[in-house]
C-alpha cells in the first residue's frame, strides 16, 4: 500500500514538473520556460550585457497580490487615522502619503540574492524558480536615492558618497507629524535599516545607491496605529519597483 502511494506521489511530482511554466520579464524582455529553471540559467542571457550592480538586482512575483494587499492595508489605516484626527495638518500629511503610495509600482519581491556570479558557484544562491510569473530588474549602479514617506513631495536626489544619511536631510521637506529624529532606509538589496539623524542619535549609516529613505510618522505613546502605519510603509517599500 505504502509503496503504491509513494509511486503515486512520485508520478504527481513528475507531472507537476512536466507541466510547469515559468514566465520571466527581464528588463522588458519576456522569457518562458517549460521546466523550472535555476536563477543562473535565467540570468545568463542578460548577465554580461552590462556591468550590472548586482546589489540592486531584484526579483518580483507578478502573479501574486501580497504587496497590493499591504498597500490597501496601509491606505485604509491612513484613512482611518485621518478621519479620527482633529489635526488638519496631520490629515494633509496622511493624504500626501496616500497619494504617494497610490503611485508606487508594486510587485511581490522575492527575498533572495540575485547575483549571476555567485549563483554560478554557490548552489544555495542558485535556486529553481517555482512555477509562476516573475519580473527581474537589473540595473547599473544607480546614482540617486529616493526620499518618501512623511514628506511634502517624493523626490530623487543624487546619491552622496561616503555620507551618513543625515546628510540628506537638507533635501527633505517633512510634513507635520513626521519623525525628524530617524529615517528608515530600504536598501536596494531589500534590507530595511533604521538610522538616527538627530545630533544625539546619529548612527553613521550610509544609503546604498538606489536606496529609499523613508520619513516615518511620529509614534504617539497612546496610539499604536502610527507604529503600524510606519511598519506597513517600510514593508511596502521593499516591494516597490523604482522608476
Amino acid at each position, binding site marked *: 500500500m505504502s509503496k503504491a502511494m509513494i509511486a503515486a506521489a512520485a508520478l504527481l*511530482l513528475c507531472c507537476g514538473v512536466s507541466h510547469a511554466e515559468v514566465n520571466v520579464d527581464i528588463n522588458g524582455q519576456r522569457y518562458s520556460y517549460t521546466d523550472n529553471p535555476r536563477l543562473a540559467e535565467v540570468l545568463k542571457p542578460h548577465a554580461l550585457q552590462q556591468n550590472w550592480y548586482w546589489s540592486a538586482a531584484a526579483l518580483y512575483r507578478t502573479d501574486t497580490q501580497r504587496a497590493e494587499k499591504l498597500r490597501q492595508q496601509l491606505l485604509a489605516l491612513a484613512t482611518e487615522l485621518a478621519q479620527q484626527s482633529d489635526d488638519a495638518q496631520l490629515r494633509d500629511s496622511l493624504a500626501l502619503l496616500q497619494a504617494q503610495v497610490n503611485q508606487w509600482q508594486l510587485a511581490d519581491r522575492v527575498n533572495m540574492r540575485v547575483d549571476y556570479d555567485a549563483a554560478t*558557484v554557490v*548552489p544555495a544562491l542558485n535556486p529553481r524558480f517555482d512555477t509562476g510569473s516573475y519580473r527581474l530588474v537589473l540595473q547599473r549602479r544607480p546614482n540617486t536615492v529616493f526620499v518618501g514617506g512623511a514628506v511634502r513631495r517624493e523626490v530623487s536626489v543624487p546619491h552622496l*558618497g561616503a555620507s551618513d544619511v543625515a546628510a540628506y536631510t537638507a533635501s527633505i521637506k517633512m510634513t507635520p507629524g513626521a519623525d525628524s529624529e530617524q529615517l528608515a532606509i530600504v536598501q536596494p538589496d531589500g534590507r530595511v535599516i533604521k538610522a538616527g539623524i538627530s545630533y544625539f542619535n546619529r548612527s553613521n549609516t550610509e544609503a546604498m545607491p538606489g536606496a529609499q529613505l523613508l520619513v516615518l510618522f511620529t509614534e504617539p505613546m497612546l496610539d499604536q496605529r502610527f507604529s503600524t502605519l510606519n511598519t506597513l510603509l517600510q514593508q511596502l517599500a521593499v516591494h516597490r519597483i523604482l522608476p
Partner: protein
Amino acid sequence: MKTAIKQLIGGSILLALTGCAGTYHSYLDTLKLAFSSNDDVNLSLQQVKAAPSDLLYVRHGERAVAAMALLRLEAGQHKWVSADNALLIMEQGRVVRTAGFENDLLYVSNTQNDQIRDYKTINPASEWLRLADWQNGEYGYLIKSRFTVQANQSLSFFGQSINTTLITEQLSYDSDSNFIRFDNSWHNSFWFDSASGTLIKSVQQLSPVAEPFEMTYISRIARLLPAVTTGASDE
C-alpha cells in the same frame, strides 16, 4: 505516509540541487585549495601545467596561500574561484569585485581608465580616480591613485628568475570616512614580465583597512618558463 512523501520530495530537491555542480569544484576539492586551509599550497611546475584550468595563488592577509581556478573569462573579466566558493573578479589584473569574503567589494567605477591596463603608457603625473562600494555599508568612497615604474625587478619561481617591471600604485582615500581611521593612504604592487608584458604577480589592498591580497599567476608563470624545468615553487 506523510513521512515517505516528505523523504521523496526531499530527495528530489537534493538531486536537483546537486545536479549542476561545476567540474572546477571537483578539481579544487581534490586539491583542497580553500582559504580555510592551514597550509600553503605549493605545486610543482608539472602539476601547475597539468591543471585543467589556470591557477592563481592567493594569500589573503596572514592566511595560508590558497589556489583559485579560473572559472570564466567573460566580458573582459577574469573570474577566479576558490574551493570554498570565494570569488575574485578582475579586469586586467585589477580586483573590481569580490564575493564570499568578510567585507566584499561590490563595485569599482571608472575601471576603463585604470592605468594598470596599459602599464607601458603610465604617466607618473596623472591620477586615476574611482568610487568603491563595500558590503559592510560604505558606498561611494573616492580612491585616488598615482603610479611609478621600476624596471628590472627580478622574481624567482620554480628555481628560475623572471625579469619584471614593477608598477607601484600609491593610493589614498579622499573621502572622509564615517568610521574612525588612522591611515588613509597605502600602496599596491604589480609585477609584469618584462619580455611579454604579462602580469605575473600583484599585491592589492582594496581599502586602507582591508587585508591585502597577494596574487601570483602561477599558470602564466609556468607558461613563461622553459619546459625543461621541474620542481617546487619558490613562492
